[in-house]
């Protein structure tokens, strides 16, 4: 019959579910867009420029690294776009262009390719870059312009404190009667929308939650890390708030400020640097939540999300070694 035609021989299975690395990466980028859009709306053109510079430099650096290291060029897979966008969202909108590019260099070269490229890095590349920049250029990294949009009701575009740094400054002042409840803080409504100082992509809780729910809906992430991360932060900060509300902010405030929501849904859930099992993810999330609040309340920095996630990234290989799924048929003597 048709002996001249060649049939494909391959190992089973012969069908696949259609998921792919670009599919995953582009879905996460999509999910970040509401948060990024709110950042641009609130902080204007500088925010947009920071995002463009971060993405463009990340993609260019990824292509260059793959080329000089003789690896297959997979720059189109969307992972460099995602790293660039996440980096931008972790920067103040006022970050100078060179700072953003240095951030991309640290993220892509040091954070990713020196470890072996996609899938091989221990730490979340965007967070490695953020922390590197924070330690190296603390002034530029902690000057946050106030949101200039209509939402901020006529506040000038001058440097402002973040809600968390305002608290840290109060605690570190040598006043005798410290009471953080007397500080002028944005309303819950403004926190939800993002009308306050902060990194350009971390401020709008509502936009980030929309993106996070989208990731859950698309089954790109599971509930384990966000829920255990936020739940632990909520519980820990609630306990401290009960102990002394004058020194420790209320738990809802903690959840809605800083990079907690961005971190819990988009950074801690990074596949490569978080555990593969559900049980492992729960441990990872609890660790992130606990360390975040520990650093915020008792550390030198007002914000602890980046450090917490990076520390738990470090613990991931150990978690994966110790927490394995229970094998089918391991329970003997049943029946």
């Amino acid at each position, binding site marked *: *019959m*048709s*002996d001249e*035609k060649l*049939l*494909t*021989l*391959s*190992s*089973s*299975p*012969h*069908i*696949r*579910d259609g*998921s*792919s*690395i670009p*599919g*995953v990466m582009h879905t996460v980028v999509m999910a970040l867009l509401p948060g990024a859009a709110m950042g641009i709306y609130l902080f204007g053109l500088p925010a947009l420029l920071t995002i463009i510079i971060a993405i463009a430099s990340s993609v260019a650096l990824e292509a260059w690294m793959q080329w000089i290291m003789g690896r297959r060029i*997979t720059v189109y*897979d969307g992972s460099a776009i995602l790293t660039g966008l996440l980096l931008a969202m972790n920067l103040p909108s006022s970050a100078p262009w060179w700072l953003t590019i240095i951030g991309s260099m640290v993220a892509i070269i040091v954070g990713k390719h020196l470890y072996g*490229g*996609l*899938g*091989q890095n221990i730490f979340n590349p965007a967070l490695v870059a953020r922390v590197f920049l924070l330690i190296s250029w603390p002034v530029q990294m902690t000057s946050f312009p106030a949101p200039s949009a209509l939402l901020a009701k006529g506040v000038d575009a001058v440097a402002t404190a973040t809600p968390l740094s305002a608290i840290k400054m109060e605690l570190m002042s040598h006043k005798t009667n410290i009471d953080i409840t007397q500080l002028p803080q944005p309303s819950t409504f403004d926190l939800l929308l993002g009308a306050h100082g902060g990194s350009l992509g971390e401020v709008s809780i509502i936009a980030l939650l929309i993106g996070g729910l989208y990731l859950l809906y698309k089954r790109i992430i599971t509930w384990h890390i966000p829920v255990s991360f936020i739940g632990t932060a909520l519980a820990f900060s609630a306990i401290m708030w009960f102990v002394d509300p004058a020194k420790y902010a209320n738990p809802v405030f903690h959840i809605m400020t800083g990079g907690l929501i961005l971190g819990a849904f988009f950074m801690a859930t990074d*596949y*490569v640097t*978080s*555990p*593969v*099992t*559900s049980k492992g*993810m729960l441990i990872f999330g609890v660790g992130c939540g606990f360390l975040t609040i520990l650093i915020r309340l008792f550390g030198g920095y007002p914000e602890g999300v980046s450090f917490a996630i990076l520390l738990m990234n470090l613990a991931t290989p150990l978690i994966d070694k110790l927490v*394995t*799924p*229970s*094998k*089918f*048929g*391991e*329970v*003997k003597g*049943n*029946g």
Partner: protein
Amino acid sequence: MHLIKGKGFRGGVHPPDWKELSNAKAVVTLPAPEQVIIPLSQHIGAPAESLMKVGDAVKKGQKIGEAKGFVSVPVHASISGKVTAVASFPHPAGKSLPAIQIESDGLDEWSEDVKENPSYKNLSPEDIKSIIQSAGIVGMGGAAFPTHVKLSPPANKKIDTLIINGAECEPYLTADHRLMLEEPDRVIEGASIIARTLSITNILIGVEDNKPDAIKAVSDAARSYEGVKVVSLKVMYPQGGEKQLIKAVSGKEVPSGGLPMDVGVVVQNVATAAAVYDAVRFGRPLIERIVTVTGSGVNNPGNFRVRTGTSSLKLIEAAGGLKNEIGKVISGGPMMGMTQYTLDIPVTKGMSGLLFLPQDEVENYASEACIRCGRCVVVCPMGLLPNMLGIYAELDRFEQAEKANLMDCIECGSCSYVCPSKRPLVHLIRYAKADVMARRKKAA
């Protein structure tokens, strides 16, 4: 109540099932072909030994290959005629293997050894087992493990339940579905004969609930039998995997490295049960089966009752011929089936389906690095870490893979199915298994 709900199992995937191509098509019995090629190996275990030489006359149902040892079964002529070759022919296993070619005399005459036994209900368990072996019966769900071996547990293993596998969880396949729907009595009577060899009455028939008509047919047929229950199972691949089925139907977990008999269970496929009925009551050896011929590569997908040894070309013809350029031919389903290198292979006892995929449905994947998304871990029905097994295999770290429970893998393909990096995980696992088995053999 004869109908109960299954309990499910952990993990698994939901591939599109494509069963609508053929599940409404009644089984069509094809006429005896002019020629058959009967492979001597159609089962797991030692191949049968040819009893024939070129020129010998044979009748339908005559034994033409003798079982070699306990884990082996004989093969039988599926038509009457003359032996024209005893040689190697292409085999669905992927290479040429010894087989007996028979040219038909057009009479389709039964051998005189084949006679009905009116008092088959009084046979002893030992008699039934010997009939099952000499009828060449093997597991017809695909694995083709000799049935009599499964029915001969050592004395210290107490069997209390017979599970009949009607899950048919592989996408595309509908042969078992049609059998249950059209001939439920053969299945149930066969099951009760098998139960008798085990001296038990407790029979559970597991069927996925995407086949409500089959569930109803089998439940109705089971009404007059004491101890037979139909278990409706939630659709989830690999529901029909032996260990997953036992778990879903009875809640019992076969221990790692163990066999169903370790939890007091024997599992047989629905088509096997029907074949047992034919053998024990009518004295007919296993010389025909239902094959689903399907996929968008054929014009008229359907279910066909064909003689073993029939060329797949006959099945293609029966299914209205090929359309489009065929890229892949798969014996079995798309999750665990084997690709074929030629369109002309003989139907074997274990061939549940022939799937024809056109060129444009054959995707070539470039495999990427593992991004540790953990999806394979979630879907693995055996609770393994396929991501790690794949990496160990890639690095030839076979001992590490073995320690990570490599040998527990049932090769269901769920991990490869969901992997966004398109890693050939099952392929890598098979590669590592081959090494571990070779080393174990050497050490033994």
